[in-house]
């Protein structure tokens, strides 16, 4: 199996280099800042979010460094509290929630459904600016003395701890609009902008994932917005809804907070499911097993996701009745996620599996997300959660889901679509090394935390009892490996921008429209002609007839196969297509 993609495509004619593409048809800074092209907005988001991830990731390394010893090793409690709060807030609200939809959703989704652009391009650009405004407010919060409330802002503590909280809650309120805009845009795009012949049953599963995500974004985000407004009013006007000393109820705040923040977990993970389906289908060259089950389970998860928020509150003073109800529904939501995992594994069966970097990420995802899911079942068990709540078990559980799930899927997706976004190939060998380092580093970091939590190590502790030391040190060591892996990715990604090999139009032999009907670097309007869709998204067995082979010349001796005269829609698209 070829592991190196470098030496094959060099000799190939660079047909795609001629003519204009979305990167070179305009090049001024202003053309980027005022662009309404969904692909460019995706790139803008990509750069911004990479910076946020870098900042929040460095904070994580700092935290792990502090925890390398039981006492105070390098910072005071106050500093540590601010560091973990900022890590959580930035990762959740400014990185994970927007990440996949804003970067890959923006870039890929319209192409996958055969549209020229999203339904509301101006709104799309506005979403990026609104996001920037939110990020700016975050910086204001830092200048104002920082925030040490954790990402949950539980009252009454968040009311007593200074002005940074005001800025930070405003930041979350504002950044929420960016997500609403994106979600709203995608729903309308998927409903109204599909190319002729692109029926709901022919939608790629990434689109289904984005659709389910967008529903959650539109329905849940307004609630965190109003919750933040009420928290601000609580500080400014003392309205006494959440503050117990004024007659309010702190547990009510938790209801408001988790009504958004639990569905937000699905905002983060559903797009990852979408990417997974694309990767597994393409790199095993087979139709997704149980397409319908995967598509509909995404929507089911999105809806059920609104009924389980109370499982974050089993020991916070909510009624026993509601704990029981929430716990029961929590199990129902575990099942659709399980179905997906089984279906993905079944897709590998009798496929033609090609172990490129994106596929390695996909396989890591399957393993890591399974652990995330099983530990999720564990903390959903009422009496066991009493022991595990607010310990490192929870920390580890949600990192297995958020980092092992979302971030690993995002990395897989970035590698997969990197040729389409940049027109360059990354270095496959380094890619595999980094994927391996990330997998090992991740497990080394977070598996010890599962054990720590079960042994009773509470979360959000700057110092801890001596007997937890070894496991903490193991975890810190793992975070180092993880960090090296991630920086390696950053390094070769930047390197490939300049020195990477030119990418062909369809290096992986994928079957979705963005690979088969779009040039190596997409045209500003995506398609030369609107495609006419006559097949399912993963009909690889039709590859030769319908979309012109696409073995992926990166995997061997085949020459570059530019997509055939792309099957395009007739000039007058007709209803019965």
């Amino acid at each position, binding site marked *: 199996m070829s592991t190196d993609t470098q030496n094959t495509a060099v000799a190939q004619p660079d047909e795609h280099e001629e003519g204009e593409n979305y990167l070179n048809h305009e090049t001024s800074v202003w053309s980027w800042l005022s662009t309404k092209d969904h692909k460019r907005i995706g790139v803008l988001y990509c750069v911004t979010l990479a910076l946020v991830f870098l900042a929040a990731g460095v904070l994580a390394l700092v935290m792990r460094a502090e925890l390398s010893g039981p006492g105070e090793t390098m910072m005071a409690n106050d500093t540590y509290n601010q560091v973990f709060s900022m890590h959580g807030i930035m990762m959740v609200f400014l990185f994970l929630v927007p990440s996949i939809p804003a970067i890959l959703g923006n870039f890929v989704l319209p192409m996958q459904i055969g549209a020229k652009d999203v339904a509301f391009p101006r709104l799309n650009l506005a979403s990026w600016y609104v996001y920037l405004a939110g990020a700016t407010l975050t910086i204001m919060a830092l200048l104002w003395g920082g925030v040490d409330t954790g990402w949950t802002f539980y009252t009454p*503590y968040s009311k007593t701890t200074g002005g940074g909280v005001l800025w930070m809650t405003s930041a979350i309120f504002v950044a929420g609009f960016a997500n609403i805009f994106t979600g709203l845009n995608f729903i309308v795009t998927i409903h109204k902008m599909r190319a002729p012949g692109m029926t709901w049953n022919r939608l790629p599963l990434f689109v289904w994932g984005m659709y389910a995500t967008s529903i959650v974004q539109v329905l849940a985000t307004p609630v965190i917005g109003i919750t933040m407004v009420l928290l601000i009013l609580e500080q400014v006007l003392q309205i006494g809804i959440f503050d117990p000393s004024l007659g309010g109820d702190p547990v009510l705040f938790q209801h408001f907070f988790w009504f958004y923040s639990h569905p937000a977990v699905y905002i983060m993970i559903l797009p990852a499911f979408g990417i997974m389906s694309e990767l597994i289908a393409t790199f095993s060259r087979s139709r997704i097993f149980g397409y319908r089950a995967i598509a509909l389970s995404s929507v089911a998860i999105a809806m059920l996701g609104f009924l389980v928020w109370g499982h974050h509150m089993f020991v916070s003073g909510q009624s026993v009745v509601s704990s029981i109800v929430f716990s029961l529904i929590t199990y129902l939501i575990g*099942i659709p996620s399980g179905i997906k995992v089984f279906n993905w594994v079944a897709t590998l069966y009798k496929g*033609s599996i090609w172990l490129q970097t994106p596929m390695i990420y996909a396989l890591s995802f399957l393993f890591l997300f399974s652990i995330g899911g099983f530990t999720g079942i564990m903390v959903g068990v009422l009496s066991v959660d*009493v022991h595990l709540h607010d310990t490192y078990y929870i920390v580890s559980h949600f990192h297995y889901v958020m980092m092992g799930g979302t971030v690993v899927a995002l990395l897989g997706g970035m590698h997969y679509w990197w040729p389409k976004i940049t027109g360059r190939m990354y270095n496959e060998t380094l890619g595999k090394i980094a994927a391996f380092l990330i997998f090992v580093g991740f497990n080394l970091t977070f598996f010890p935390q599962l054990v720590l939590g079960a042994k009773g190590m509470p979360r959000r502790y700057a110092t801890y009892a001596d007997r937890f030391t070894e496991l903490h040190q193991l975890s810190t060591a793992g975070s180092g490996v993880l960090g090296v892996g991630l920086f390696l990715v950053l390094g070769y990604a930047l390197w490939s921008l300049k020195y990477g090999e030119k990418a062909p139009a369809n290096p992986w032999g994928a079957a979705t429209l963005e690979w088969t009907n779009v040039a190596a670097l997409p045209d500003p309007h995506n398609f030369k002609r609107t495609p006419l869709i006559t097949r399912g998204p993963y009909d690889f067995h039709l590859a030769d007839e319908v979309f012109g082979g696409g073995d992926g010349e990166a995997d061997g001796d085949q020459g570059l196969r530019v997509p055939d005269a792309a099957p395009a829609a007739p000039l007058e698209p007709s209803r019965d297509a």
Partner: protein
Amino acid sequence: MGDFWLPEAASTIAPEVDSLFLFVTAVSAILLVGVTGAMLYFVYRYRRQSPGERPAPVEESKLLEISWIVIPTILVLLVFNWGFKSYVKMHAVPSEAYEIRVQAQQWNFLFEYPNGVTSDTLYVPEGEKVKMRMSSADVLHGFFIPAFRVKYDILPNRYTSVWFEATKEGDYDLFCTEYCGRNHSEMDKVVRVVSQDEFDNWLEEAGTSEDIPLPELGKQLYSQRGCQGCHSLDGSEMVGPSFQGLYGRTDHEMSDGTTLTVDENYLRESILKPEARIVAGYNNLMPGSYSSLSERQLTGLIEFIKEQSDKEPPASDQGQTTATN
């Protein structure tokens, strides 16, 4: 496997929680190995041999799909039912339980026994059902004893409770698990499980705190009420001014630029109304909850602070306050 994962079990509910935990862990491990094994096997078995491979589409199997919906559903419902039963048990406080009050504040727990004894170590008798009636003076806190597998948040505006029956003598950890600010991670205490006799003896002896001398009482309060978290006795800088050499200082500078002499009046006011006058260079971070100290406790605390200074009592206008010395 239990030793690897879980801390020592020392309450009646712990074995129940543990067996459930281990059951879920075991089933998860089996499923994880199955899924990963199948995945790795397929990856090897069906690896791509030539770039032109066109595998034939696999027929979907309804039976397979239904089986992996139904089997997990049965499993999780089983687990839910199990967890639900022990959760209800955890919440049904037996009526005969011995009640201990827990007062939480930033960053300290105080335990109060029915006879009025207060303690900063939680003494509980072995083999007796004990109920903790908990409240907080400021923000949310959490009450967590890993060895007993009990946890519940402590709220400022209503009582919450947990109960347990300790089964093994020994010292165990007690942690605050709801993030509560700066010294959250230092808000831990010791739970000491002793035999019923020992417990009764301790309770009786501790009950005589009325007789101990004032400075001694102050010293106890200094550690019980969490003063040591912010005020050192050796002059080192902490969140609040050190008590060393504090009493009797004549050049104590305030944040508004004025200076004053540290006397009993000032100490008392600073304990009861910390926000009234702020020492230069410090922020007002002191909880307001010390106003619940009794007169005797206040006096004791002030006497204790006075002992930390070798200075003479301030000379002027101390008529009625020095009278108590």
